[in-house]
Every structure is written in structure tokens, then in C-alpha cells.
């Protein structure tokens, strides 16, 4: 069809003085500001804009709104965007789009746009800025309420083109969000909307503006003025481009100045089709026929109508050879119940199968729906949330009724909020109007016509996007299906991008007819968020890249960066992993760092360790209940290692406890567990032992910690802390001293995670870098070497010290780790104690932490590799799976100190296998012999800790 003459000379709210250029499927077209892509294509005579996904049938535009089932396109420029309803794409200069066959296409490059989210609170959220919504918002604003009014369209006024003026609406008094779709209604009146801020600007969109913004709105009261969707009717060929929902033709005329055709047939089962006839005829469209199954084609129709077919239905729509078979050319009309067929030429067939209130959000909120036989659709039927439905969304049809209803809904909501509503009504209604008129059916009632009876239902489409026909639905019921949910899944009706906005009730009606059941009895499929599709990027918002999760770094981090450290993520912390010198990889660097710590001096940033201070007269008693060992007997000035278990007896965390004062303890936790341990302690204190006078505070970020490790560490410390007696007798192992280090107030702890003489120096966080640099300088004469987490792991593993989370996995007891010594026998109870006595937990053949020495001392066992008993081997080979496993390697390293490789492993009955040979099957098929050893492989006598 040529586009000539399809643009009306005066109608519409488009800017005819400005021309916008766009391309569709490679062809250049033009339109105007105010157009959508759909209206511009229709104005240019483009009818077919896609191909259906399953049957390959032509698809055009059916509606003028977000319920659009067929007119879905791929945007190509300014940026590829899949599956966009052309009815919701605002035209801008340079827009490029192409047709689809039911599947969109993602861009092959990153989306440069930004996305954002905003929280908002209001007394009243009004969804939908049609007559009811505007009236509701207006009353609420005038009554002094904080109001948010959201609407998916570019301007307020609603879907209906029947604008009667809304000058009475005070935009400034409310937060008005246009181009904003409220798409989800969650618990406690929490609603979520997406605002489209830049798409309509095209290339002119400012780069600093988020393309889409999520609104998270908590509303005191919600008024849903969400309108109604017109329904199609199923007949043969009802999917042909040119067949449209009737009222959308009025929207195209009045809003966009576009004639959807030159010669139209209107097929309606309710009175709303008559205003279509009137308006189109007045605009110069030839009305070839008005078809209404009701006997009397009631209502006054202005303008010429070619033929009036009361008591008739449209049975088929066709293309023809002259105009092509992918657009409408002729319409077949028959009397209800059968009879002679009249064939009428038409390029538009405008169908109204009645109106379905838009209750998606209401249903999401938990609202019940009931089927109303008079309206022929579901209506709201009560909700426990603070929500009121107004206007067409509860079945009202006239603009006046909707205005009155909006005021009434606002009055109810305001009263519930404790706000006194002012006495006001929209001028066109008149002040003080009483409640709304009841929902009314068309004169003579709306016939329950959903699909036109036929022999062959294979082109009576129900779901236009998923290519589902009446025949498909009948096949489903024939297969034994009785539930609309089953039929939906059998046919896929209602599962497309439109989620069945136009097809849902039609599907139910066909099922109902097939099963001789009412729609009320069948119910409806569940409405789920989002109301209309929402981009992944909008939901992701700003929380991407470095903003996905905070990166925590220590006060010394910049130094590590400057000195070439490699980092690893430990929880949110970024920790130095190792410090490669020129030409070094991980293995070489770690070897050098280890040698420094074992033979000279090395230092490490240990600031990430969790630190919790516990104060109060009952602090000691409290810790006795949390740790497996006794803490209350610790002397002030002393430090003790401790293990915490869960109630199930499994190791939860470990660390040191320093007694600072009779009523003050300082705990350390593993880096990743600092938060969970504090939460755990507070939970017990508050919920079980509120009688204990003890209080916990996280001080992780208060103390920067530098571990100075190695035989020369005492020399380094002595230079930095001249006031501190550093000799082993005066400052023994597992004690702490408050002193001054490098001129900074410091607490020095003589503890060691390496077996070497070592000090952990703690200073205020903001002194961390100064301390570190001072240590570096003071240690320079001794060749002090910075080391990272990998070297820390090697050093501790050589000593058999486990890492919680690496050598344990939530199934390991302290006894399994060979640390029965840390489990008090004297205490009557502590968390986890009872679980040790359970039959499985007390088994002697549980997995124990042991050392493993590969017989080839150069072979590094991969961590995670498992070990098997030689007894299970057959001919030196593994048996068929499942192969019995004894356990797995938890840690494995090359040791400079041992001059060989070694591993720690959890092995069933491991302590009883020391000296045994086991085999480790490797990825390459080799079976590697390993010897079981005790876990402490270096300095088992502990001779080195005093230097």
C-alpha cells in the first residue's frame, strides 16, 4: 500500500513542521516528532513488519500500545535492541530498525549506556495517567498528599484519545514520571518501575544521562488506574496485517494523525466499535461494513457506512493476488449461525472483542480476581495490600465514569492515609459528583463471542506472537488437559513477550467452550512481573564492574601496588598474593620469600585479619562458651590460640585471643570470617545469653597489622622499638606489649603463623603505611623481604597449621585436624561439644589432616587430587568407578625449607596410616605413590619460634 494520503491533514499531536528520517528493512522513510515507529510505518503504508516464529506468516501492527502482540521489531541503530514493540518505540532521527521472525538479536559489542536506580517514598502512587489516574492524582495533590504519578506513555492523558482537557491537573504538585512503566508490585506496597530516559532522543541523548532508571517505590497507598486492553476475536486469517484492534485506529488517528486504511470493516461485539466508525468516517475513511453479531446494530453512527451487518460475524480475512497475500484485501461476512457469505473489499479490519481490565499489577500484589459475566472479563475482587483500582481497570467504560471513579478511589486512599480529601472534582464532571456509575454492558449485552465457529480452526489465531490457534487449544483439551496452565504450556499461548495481554482470556474461552466449563471456573494463568519486558541492564543498574562489590584494601595497599605485588581476592579484600621480582613467576617469588622468612626476615601486611574486641565483666565466661578451649584463665598480657565450632561440632573459625585487661579481650578471626564471627557472637549474646554482661565491637578497620617474621625479626623490631625489651625471656611467645614502634603507638604481639620467631605489630589504621615503610627501612640491612598470602600458606603448611576453609570444609572437627589439645575436657559445655559425641562424629576412621610426601620429591600434587588405598588397585590400575576414595589434598606446595614438595590432606583414618603408601590418581592417568606423614613437617620440636 502506498503511503500517500494516509497522514491526516490536521489530526494528531505530531510536529508536522519537523521531518525525522528513519530506515526500516533497508528502506528510508520519514515521520514526525510525536510518532512511534508503528505510526510512522503505517503512515508510510508499511503493513507487513515481521514474520511469525513458527508458521512464517506475515505480521503487522495490531494495537497502539504496550499490549502489542505482533508489531515487534529489531532496533539496529543507535544500538541493537531486540524484540521492541514498534508501538512503544518513539521515532527519532536516524532510527534504524528491521523486521523479525519472532526472535531478536543481541549486540555483539558492549552496551555503552548507563543505567541507574532511585528509591522513592510517597503517600500515594498512581499508576496510569488516563482520566481515572489523573483525577486521583489531582485530588491527592490538592489534599496535600505526596504523590507519584507514573505512566508508560510519553505524556499524560492515557491510552484513550478522548481528551477532554486536563488543565486541572497540577503537574508541579506531583512527581510525574512519564515513559515510566510500573512493572512489578511486591510485598508491603513496594512497586518497581522503569523509566526510559534517553531512547526517544536518539543520537541527541546526553551521554551522562542513564538510559533507563529503575524506581523502587514504597507507597502508602496505591491507586491502579491501569486501563483496559481491547481483545481480538478469533476467525480465519485474523492475524493478517491490516487486521487491528478497533480502538487503536482511533489512537492512530487522533494521536498520530494516521489513517490505518482507506476502506475499513469494523467488527465489534460491543459499543466501543461504534465510536471507531464515527471517528474514522469523519476523518475520511470509507467504512465498508459494520459487523456486529447483535441483531440491532445499536448506537448512533455518524458518517457513511457501506453496509450494516447486524446479526453477522466476520468469518475470514484474506489477501488477494492483486495486493499480495501478506496484507488484508477482503473480508468475508456471514450471518451468525451460518448463511450466505458476503465478501467485502477492505484494507483495514478493525476488531473489538470487548475490553479486558489491566489487572496484572493488582494480581501481582496478591489481589484476587473474579470473572464478571456482564463485563465479560476479570475484575478486581479484594486485596490485603493498600491498593485501590479505578477506572477502566475495573470495567468502567466512559471517560466521565473514569474521572469520577478516580476521584472516588483517591478519596478512599486518602482517608486510609489519614489525610482529609478536599472537595474537588474535575471541571467536566462538576464538583461534588456522587460515586461512579456502575460498570455497564453495551445495550443488549455483550455477546459471549470469543471465536467465530468454523470447521477449520487452523488460522483462528489466539496468540499471534506464538502462532497459537483455536485448533491448537482444542488439541490440548483433547489430549486430556483441563487446566489453563496446562493448555498454556501445551500450546505456548501467553508465553511470548506480550505474556498473553490480548490472548489470555481468548485462550480460556476456547478451553471453557471445549470443556463446557465457565471462564470463572477455569480461572486465569498467573500474572508475574514484569508487566512489560525490562532490560537486563536496567535491572543490573550501576552495580557492575568495580561497583558490583566493594573492594576492601588495607592502608598499605598502594605500597603493594607500587612494588609490583600480584593480588588475590579474599572475600571483599584484595590481598597481596606474592611480589615477583624481575623475571620471577609465582614459584620463584614464593621460594625467595619463604627463604627470607626462614633464614633472615620477611614481612607481611596482615591488616585484613578480622579483629573483634570483647568487653565486660562476663567477657571471659562468654568466650569460654564460644571457643573449644578455655579463655577465662588467660592472664592479662597473654595470648592464646582458639578454635570456634558450629553447633554441629565442625570447625567454624580460628584465631588468637589476647587478654588486654580483666574485662577486655581482643580476638582475631580469619580474613573472610570477620563478619560472620561477629554476627555469631552477637546472636548468642542477644538471643541466648542476654544475662551475660559482654559487648562486642569490630575493630578490624581500626588496626593495621604488620607481621615481621624470621630469625632476624627481633633485630628489626629492636631498631624500631628501642623502648621495648625484645629478648625471649622478657617478651615471651604468646604475649603482647603496648609500646612505641617507629614513633607510633603500637601493640606488639609475639605470635607466629610460620613457626619462626615473629612479631605482629599493630598500629592505628592510618599509621599503617608509615609503620610498613619504617619496617622496610629498618629491615633493609637484613634484606627484609615483603611476602604475600601464598608464602604465608607455604610457611604455615610446613608447620601443619590448617587454613579454615582450605584445609577444612565445614565437615571437619578440631579432632580431625589433630587438634584435640584445643578442645577442653574440663568445660561442662561449649558450642559444638555435644556434637562430638554423635556416633558418626565420634568414629575413629573419620578423615584426619595429615601430611603427604610424594615419593618423587619434585612432584607437586595438584590441590584437590584424591588418594586411594593400594588395596583397591587391580594390576596396578584403578578399578572401574566408583573408585573408593580415602580423601583429598587440601594444600600442596614446593618447600624450600624441606627441599621437596609436600602436601596436607584429609585422609580417612589418616593418623593410623602414617608411614603407609597411598596412590594419587592424576589428570594424565598416572598413579602417583605418596607416603602419609604427620602434618608437622618442619621443625616439629618448635625450636625456631624464639629465634
Amino acid at each position, binding site marked *: 500500500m502506498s503511503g500517500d494520503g494516509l497522514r491526516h491533514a490536521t489530526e494528531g499531536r505530531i510536529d508536522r513542521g519537523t521531518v525525522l528520517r528513519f530506515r526500516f528493512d533497508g528502506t528510508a522513510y520519514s515521520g514526525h516528532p510525536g510518532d512511534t515507529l508503528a505510526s510512522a510505518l503505517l503512515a508510510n503504508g508499511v503493513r507487513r513488519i515481521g514474520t511469525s516464529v513458527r508458521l512464517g506468516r506475515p505480521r503487522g501492527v495490531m494495537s497502539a500500545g504496550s499490549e502489542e502482540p505482533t508489531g515487534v521489531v529489531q532496533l539496529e541503530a543507535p544500538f541493537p535492541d531486540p524484540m521492541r514493540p514498534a508501538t512503544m518505540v518513539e521515532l527519532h532521527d536516524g532510527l534504524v530498525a528491521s523486521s523479525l521472525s519472532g526472535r531478536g538479536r543481541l549486540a555483539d559489542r558492549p552496551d555503552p549506556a548507563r543505567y541507574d536506580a532511585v528509591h522513592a517514598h510517597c503517600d500515594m502512587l498512581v499508576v496510569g495517567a488516563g482520566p481515572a489516574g489523573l483525577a486521583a492524582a489531582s485530588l491527592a495533590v490538592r489534599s496535600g498528599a505526596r504523590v507519584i504519578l507514573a505512566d508508560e506513555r510519553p505524556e499524560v492523558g492515557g491510552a484513550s484519545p478522548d481528551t477532554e482537557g486536563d488543565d486541572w491537573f497540577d503537574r508541579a504538585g506531583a512527581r510525574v514520571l512519564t515513559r515510566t512503566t510500573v512493572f512489578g508490585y511486591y510485598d508491603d506496597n513496594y512497586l518497581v518501575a522503569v523509566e526510559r530516559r534517553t531512547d526517544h532522543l536518539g543520537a541527541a541523548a546526553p551521554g551522562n544521562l542513564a538510559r533507563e532508571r529503575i524506581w523502587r517505590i514504597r507507597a502508602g497507598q496505591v491507586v491502579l488506574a491501569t486501563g483496559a486492553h481491547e481483545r481480538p476475536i478469533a476467525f480465519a486469517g485474523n492475524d493478517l496485517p491490516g487486521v487491528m484492534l478497533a480502538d487503536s485506529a482511533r489512537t492512530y488517528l487522533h494521536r498520530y494523525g494516521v489513517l490505518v486504511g482507506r476502506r475499513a470493516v469494523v467488527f465489534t461485539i460491543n459499543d466501543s466499535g461504534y465510536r471507531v466508525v464515527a471517528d474514522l468516517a469523519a476523518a475520511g475513511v470509507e467504512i465498508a461494513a459494520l459487523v456486529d453479531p447483535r441483531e440491532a446494530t445499536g448506537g448512533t453512527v455518524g458518517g457513511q457506512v457501506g453496509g450494516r451487518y447486524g446479526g453477522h460475524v466476520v468469518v475470514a480475512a484474506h489477501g488477494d493476488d492483486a495486493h499480495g497475500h501478506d496484507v488484508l484485501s477482503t473480508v468475508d461476512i456471514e450471518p451468525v449461525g451460518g448463511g450466505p457469505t458476503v465478501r467485502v473489499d477492505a484494507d483495514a479490519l478493525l476488531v473489538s472483542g470487548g475490553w479486558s481490565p489491566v489487572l496484572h499489577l493488582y494480581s501481582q500484589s496478591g489481589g484476587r480476581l473474579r470473572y464478571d459475566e456482564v463485563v465479560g472479563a476479570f475484575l478486581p475482587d479484594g486485596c490485603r495490600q493498600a491498593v485501590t483500582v479505578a477506572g477502566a481497570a475495573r470495567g468502567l467504560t466512559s471517560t466521565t465514569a473514569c474521572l469520577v471513579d478516580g476521584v472516588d478511589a483517591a478519596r478512599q486512599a486518602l482517608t486510609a492515609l489519614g489525610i482529609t480529601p478536599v472537595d474537588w472534582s474535575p471541571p467536566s464532571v462538576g464538583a461534588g459528583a456522587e460515586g461512579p456509575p456502575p460498570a455497564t454492558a453495551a445495550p443488549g449485552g455483550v455477546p459471549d463471542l470469543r471465536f467465530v465457529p468454523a470447521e477449520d480452526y487452523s488460522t483462528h489465531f489466539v496468540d499471534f506472537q506464538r502462532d497459537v490457534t483455536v485448533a491448537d487449544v482444542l488439541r490440548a483439551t483433547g489430549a486430556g488437559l483441563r487446566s489453563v496452565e496446562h493448555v498454556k504450556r501445551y500450546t505456548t499461548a501467553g508465553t511470548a513477550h506480550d505474556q498473553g495481554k490480548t490472548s489470555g482470556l481468548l485462550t480460556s474461552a476456547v478451553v471453557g467452550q471445549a470443556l463446557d466449563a465457565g471462564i470463572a471456573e477455569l480461572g486465569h494463568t498467573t500474572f508475574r512481573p514484569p508487566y512489560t519486558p525490562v532490560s537486563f541492564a536496567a535491572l543490573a543498574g550501576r552495580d557492575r564492574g568495580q561497583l558490583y562489590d566493594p573492594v576492601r584494601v588495607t592502608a598499605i595497599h598502594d605500597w603493594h601496588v607500587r612494588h609490583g605485588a600480584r593480588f588475590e581476592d579474599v572475600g571483599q579484600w584484595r590481598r597481596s598474593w606474592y611480589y615477583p621480582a624481575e623475571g620471577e613467576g609465582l614459584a620463584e617469588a614464593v621460594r625467595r620469600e619463604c627463604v627470607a622468612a626462614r633464614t633472615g626476615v620477611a614481612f607481611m601486611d596482615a591488616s585484613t585479619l578480622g579483629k573483634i574486641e570483647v568487653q565486660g565483666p562476663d567477657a571471659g565466661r562468654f568466650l569460654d562458651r564460644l571457643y573449644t578451649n578455655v579463655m577465662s584463665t588467660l592472664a592479662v598480657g597473654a595470648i592464646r590460640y582458639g578454635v570456634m565450632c558450629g553447633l554441629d561440632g565442625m570447625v567454624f573459625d580460628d584465631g588468637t585471643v589476647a587478654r588486654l585487661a580483666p574485662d577486655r579481650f581482643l580476638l582475631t578471626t580469619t580474613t573472610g570470617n570477620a563478619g560472620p564471627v561477629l*554476627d555469631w557472637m*552477637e546472636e548468642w549474646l542477644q538471643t541466648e545469653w542476654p544475662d551475660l554482661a559482654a559487648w562486642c565491637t569490630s575493630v578490624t578497620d581500626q588496626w593495621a597489622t604488620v607481621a615481621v617474621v624470621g630469625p632476624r625479626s627481633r633485630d628489626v623490631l629492636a631498631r624500631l622499638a628501642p623502648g621495648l625489651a625484645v629478648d625471649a625471656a622478657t617478651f615471651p611467645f604468646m604475649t603482647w606489649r603496648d609500646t612505641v614502634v617507629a614513633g607510633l603507638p603500637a601493640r606488639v604481639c609475639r605470635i607466629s603463623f610460620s613457626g619462626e620467631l615473629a612479631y605482629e605489630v599493630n598500629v592505628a589504621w592510618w599509621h599503617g603505611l608509615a609503620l610498613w615503610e619504617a619496617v622496610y627501612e629498618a629491615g633493609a640491612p637484613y634484606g627484609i623481604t615483603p611476602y604475600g598470602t601464598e608464602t604465608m600458606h607455604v610457611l604455615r603448611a610446613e608447620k601443619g597449621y590448617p587454613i579454615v576453609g582450605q584445609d577444612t570444609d565445614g565437615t571437619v572437627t578440631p579432632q580431625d585436624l589433630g587438634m584435640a589439645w584445643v578442645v577442653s575436657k574440663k568445660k561442662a559445655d561449649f558450642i559444638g*561439644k555435644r556434637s562430638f559425641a554423635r556416633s558418626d562424629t565420634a568414629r575413629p576412621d573419620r578423615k584426619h589432616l595429615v601430611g603427604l610426601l610424594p615419593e618423587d620429591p619434585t612432584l607437586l600434587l595438584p590441590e584437590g587430587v584424591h588418594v586411594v588405598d593400594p588395596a583397591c588397585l587391580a594390576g596396578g590400575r584403578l578399578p572401574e568407578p566408583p573408585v573408593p576414595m580415602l580423601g583429598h589434598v587440601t594444600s600442596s606446595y614446593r618447600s624450600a625449607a624441606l627441599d621437596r614438595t609436600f602436601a596436607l590432606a584429609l585422609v580417612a583414618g589418616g593418623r593410623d596410616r602414617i608411614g603407609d603408601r597411598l596412590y594419587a590418581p592424576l589428570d594424565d592417568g598416572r598413579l602417583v605413590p605418596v607416603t602419609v606423614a604427620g602434618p608437622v613437617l618442619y621443625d616439629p620440636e618448635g625450636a625456631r619460634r624464639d629465634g
Partner: protein
Amino acid sequence: MLLIRCPWCGPRDETEFHYGGAAHVAYPSDPAALSDEEWGRYLFVRENLKGPFAERWCHTAGCRRWFNAVRDTLTNEILRVYRIGEPA
């Protein structure tokens, strides 16, 4: 997104809270006196009611206090909140 009324701070978004499961499950006074089965019940068995359910929440991003709530697990409606130690 629940709106939870912390008894100390007032209504706040669910994101500020940590969930603590069933309320009123007291630590046994003498765990050693329990059988493995009884101890196992204390460790692992919690009410899983469909309907009003007494549960614990902690206002972790606020006052860090634990408190109890009765919430209908079918509708997510919070019927009441009360402080630790107050009767259910």
C-alpha cells in the same frame, strides 16, 4: 521486598535485615543429657509452618539488634514484631 518494623528503629527495607529462622528454640540446658536423636532435633529440626510463623530477624544494617516477628509464610505479611524476651 518486605517492610520490617524493627522494634528499635521502626520500619525499614528487608535489605537491612538478616534472617534468623524459627524463634523460641532455646539452647538445651544440659546438652550432654540429650540422646543423639534429641540433640539432632535441636540442631536441625525447625518448624516450617505454612501460615503464621514466629521467627527471628537481626537489624544488621541498623541497630544490630535481634528481635522476633510473626509472619504469615503464605502471604509474607508481618503480623507483629516483639523484642527478645517479650512473650510471643
